C-alpha cells in the first residue's frame, strides 16, 4: 500500500549543515466539536513537553495528556495532519488496565475508545502506529489515570427581596427561574467538563433561600428584587459576598442561583453571569450564578472555588492574566481554557483569525480545557494539581 508521509523541515539551530526534522503526521484531539460531551474530553495538547507536575513526567513520552478516572470509558480522535487519508493507523496502550479499541485499524473518523479498568501508577502510553500494532510510531500521548473525587455541593434556589427593577419593561422576578431539574442538568454539563480531573460535583443538599440583602456601597444603594447589585468600585462584590454568608452548609460548596445581576453604575443586567470565591478564603467561599449562566459558566466559577487560577499568585485571577497584566492573553490556547475570563468572548475586531473565533466549542464560546500539564513560564498552569488538592480535602 503506497503511503505518503509529508515531512516538513524547519531550520532550528544555527548550523547550516544540519536540519532538525519535526514530523507531525497525526495529532490527538477531542472526539467531538461543539459543546462538551461527557465521554469526549479535551486533551491537554499544549506542546509536546509534559511539564513539571504529574508522575507521567517521569516517562519518555512527548505528547498530550488526558485524564480518565478509573471505571470510565472515553473517546479520542486521531487527526491526520501530514499523512495519507488511507494510511492504516492502529492505536495501542502500554497498560493492560487501559484498554484501547478498536484493535483493528482506525476508521475514517479516526475515533478510538479508551477504557480504564483499574489504577495505573504513571499513566498509560497511547501510541498511534502505522500499518500494524507493532508498526512505526506516528504519535504518542499519556492517559493519566486517577480515582474519583466527589466534591459536595449545596444548591440554593434563591429568592431575593427588594426594590423591583424593570428589565426591558418587565419587572425582574424575585426568585431564580431555575428548578432542581434544571440545576441537575446544569451539573451534568459541569461534570462532563470536570471529568478529566476525576472531580465530580455532587449535589448533597437543596435549600430554598429567601433573603433581603442589606449591604450598600457607591451606586449599589440597596436591595434589588431578584438581583445581586454590582458596580465598578472596589466594593463591587459586597452583595455577592453577603449572599454567600446566608444559610450555608459547611464542608460543601454553596452555590447560589439568583435571577440575575444588576450593574448599578449603568443600569444593565447580567453583564456578569457568575462570581466565584476561592476556598482558601476559608469561611465564605462559594459561587453566585445568574440565570443566564450556562454549564461552562458554572464550571468556571467552581474552578475559582478550587483556587483556579488564583494559585498563580499576585493579582492573577484568570488564564488570560500574567504576573504583570490582566486580560493580556487571548490566543487560541487561552480561549480554549475553562478559566479564560470571558464567555462568550466576542470579536476582538476586524481581522480576527477564524481559529480564534472558534476554538472548537462554537463561535465565540469559551473552551472547557482544564490543564493537566504544568508548563514553565505560565503561573496559571498546573490546574489539575491545584484543583485536585482542594477537591480531595475536607472543605471548611
Amino acid at each position, binding site marked *: 500500500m503506497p503511503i505518503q508521509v509529508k515531512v516538513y523541515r524547519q531550520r532550528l539551530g544555527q548550523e547550516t549543515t544540519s536540519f532538525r526534522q519535526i514530523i507531525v503526521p497525526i495529532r490527538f484531539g477531542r472526539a467531538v466539536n461543539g459543546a462538551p460531551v461527557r465521554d469526549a474530553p479535551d486533551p491537554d495538547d499544549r506542546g509536546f513537553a509534559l511539564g513539571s507536575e504529574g508522575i507521567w513526567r517521569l516517562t519518555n513520552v512527548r505528547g498530550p495528556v488526558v485524564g480518565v478516572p478509573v471505571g470510565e470509558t472515553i473517546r479520542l480522535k486521531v487527526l491526520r495532519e501530514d499523512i495519507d487519508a488511507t494510511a492504516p493507523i492502529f492505536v495501542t496502550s502500554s497498560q493492560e488496565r487501559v484498554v484501547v479499541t478498536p484493535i483493528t485499524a482506525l476508521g475514517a473518523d479516526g475515533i478510538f475508545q479508551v477504557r480504564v479498568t483499574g489504577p495505573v501508577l504513571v499513566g498509560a502510553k497511547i501510541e498511534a502506529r502505522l500499518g500494524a500494532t507493532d508498526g512505526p510510531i506516528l504519535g504518542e500521548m499519556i492517559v493519566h489515570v486517577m480515582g474519583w473525587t466527589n466534591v459536595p455541593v449545596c444548591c440554593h434556589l434563591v429568592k431575593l427581596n427588594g426594590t423591583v427593577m424593570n428589565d426591558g419593561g418587565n419587572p425582574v422576578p424575585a426568585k431564580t427561574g431555575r428548578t432542581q431539574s434544571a440545576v441537575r442538568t446544569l451539573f451534568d454539563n459541569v461534570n462532563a467538563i470536570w471529568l478529566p480531573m476525576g472531580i465530580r460535583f455532587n449535589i448533597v443538599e437543596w435549600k430554598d433561600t429567601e433573603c433581603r440583602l442589606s449591604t450598600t456601597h457607591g451606586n449599589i444603594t440597596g436591595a434589588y428584587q431578584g438581583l445581586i447589585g454590582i458596580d465598578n468600585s472596589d466594593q463591587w*462584590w459586597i452583595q455577592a459576598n453577603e449572599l454567600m454568608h446566608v444559610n450555608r452548609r459547611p464542608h460543601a460548596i454553596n452555590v447560589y442561583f439568583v435571577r440575575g445581576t444588576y450593574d448599578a453604575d449603568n443600569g444593565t443586567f447580567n453583564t456578569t453571569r457568575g462570581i466565584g470565591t476561592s476556598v482558601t478564603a476559608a469561611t465564605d467561599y462559594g459561587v453566585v450564578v445568574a440565570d443566564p449562566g450556562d454549564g461552562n459558566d458554572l464550571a468556571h466559577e467552581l474552578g475559582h472555588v478550587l483556587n483556579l487560577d488564583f494559585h498563580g499568585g*499576585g493579582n492573577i485571577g484568570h488564564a488570560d492574566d500574567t504576573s504583570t497584566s490582566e486580560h493580556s492573553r487571548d490566543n487560541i490556547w487561552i480561549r480554549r481554557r475553562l478559566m479564560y475570563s470571558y464567555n462568550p468572548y466576542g470579536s476582538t475586531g476586524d481581522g480576527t483569525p477564524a481559529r480564534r473565533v472558534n476554538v472548537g466549542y462554537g463561535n465565540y464560546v469559551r473552551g472547557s480545557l482544564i490543564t493537566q500539564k504544568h508548563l514553565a513560564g505560565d503561573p496559571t498552569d498546573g490546574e489539575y494539581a491545584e484543583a485536585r488538592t482542594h477537591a480531595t480535602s*475536607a472543605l471548611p
Partner: protein
Amino acid sequence: MKTRFGEKVHAKLFILGMLGLLLGAASGETDCLISTNAASVENNHAGAKTSASKRGHPMESSQIEAMILAKEWKVLDYIGALGESAIPMLSRLLENPDPQVRQLVVLCLEKVPGPKAADLLAKTINDPDEQVRAYAADILLVTPDPSILPAMLSAATRHEDPYIRAKAALFVGIMGDGNSLDLLRQALASEQNSNVQNGLQQAMARLGDPAARRAILEQLNSPDKKKQFEALEKIEYVNDRNLVKNISRLLDNSSPVMVLMASETARVVLRLKDAAAKVIAVLLKQPFTFKLPSYRVCTDAEIQEIKAYLQKQRLVD
C-alpha cells in the same frame, strides 16, 4: 425522599420545623427568611441557628443512620445531639462500601468530638479511598485529641500517602512534645516529598525547634511575595504571639498576593498587609474592634488600628 423511612424522618422534621418557625418568629429574628425542604424557620443570616433540632429535639440513632445511608447532609445538623452515643453506629457505617457514605460519617464524627471519635478518625486515615482518608486527616486537625498522638506520630513518619503524612505531622505539632520533636527531625531527614517536608517543618517550629523557626522567618523575608504569603500561613499555624513582631512590618506592604474572588472583569485582591493583619489578629486572639477570622481586604482604618495596638503592646519589630 429516597426511602419510606426517610419520609417519616422528614415528616418529623417538618413538625419540628414548624416549632422552629414559631420560636424564631417569637425571638424577633426577621431579617432573613430561610426555608429548606425539611423545615421553614425565621433566621438572622448573620449566623443565628434556629432549626428545630438545635433547640433540643434530638433524633433517634436509627433515624440518623437512615439519613447517613441516604447521604442526606442535613444529618450534620442533628448528629451532634446524640453525642458519644453515636459512636457505635458511626463505627459500623465506616465499614460501608460506599465512599460517599464514609465521607459523610467522617464529617459526623466532627460533630461528636472526643477520644472515641478521634480513635475512629485515626483508623480512617487508612481508608482505601483517597478522599475519605484525606477527610479524616483534615477533621482530626479541626478537633485534635491527644489520645491518638502515637498513631499520628506513626502516620507522620510511615504512612504511604504523602497527604496523610503532611497532615499527621501538623497534628503532631499541635499535640506533641519534646519526644515528638526528635521523631519529626528524623522523619524530615529522610522525607522526599516537599509538601510533607513543609508539614514537618511547621510542626517542628510549633514545637519550638529553632532551625525550623529560622527557616520560616527566612522565608518571610523572601523577595518572592508568594513565598512570603506562605510563610505567613506557616506562622499562623505555629501560633506563637512572639512572632507578631516579625510580621508587623508587613502591615505597610500593599503587594498583591492572591485573588480571593473574581467575576469576568473584576476581582478582589488580597494584599500582603491584609494577610499579615489576619495572622496577627489570629495570633493575638482577635483583640481589635473588628474580627479577622479569615482573609479579606482590610480598610485603612483597620490597618491603622492594628498598628496602634501593636505599638501600645510593644509588639513592633
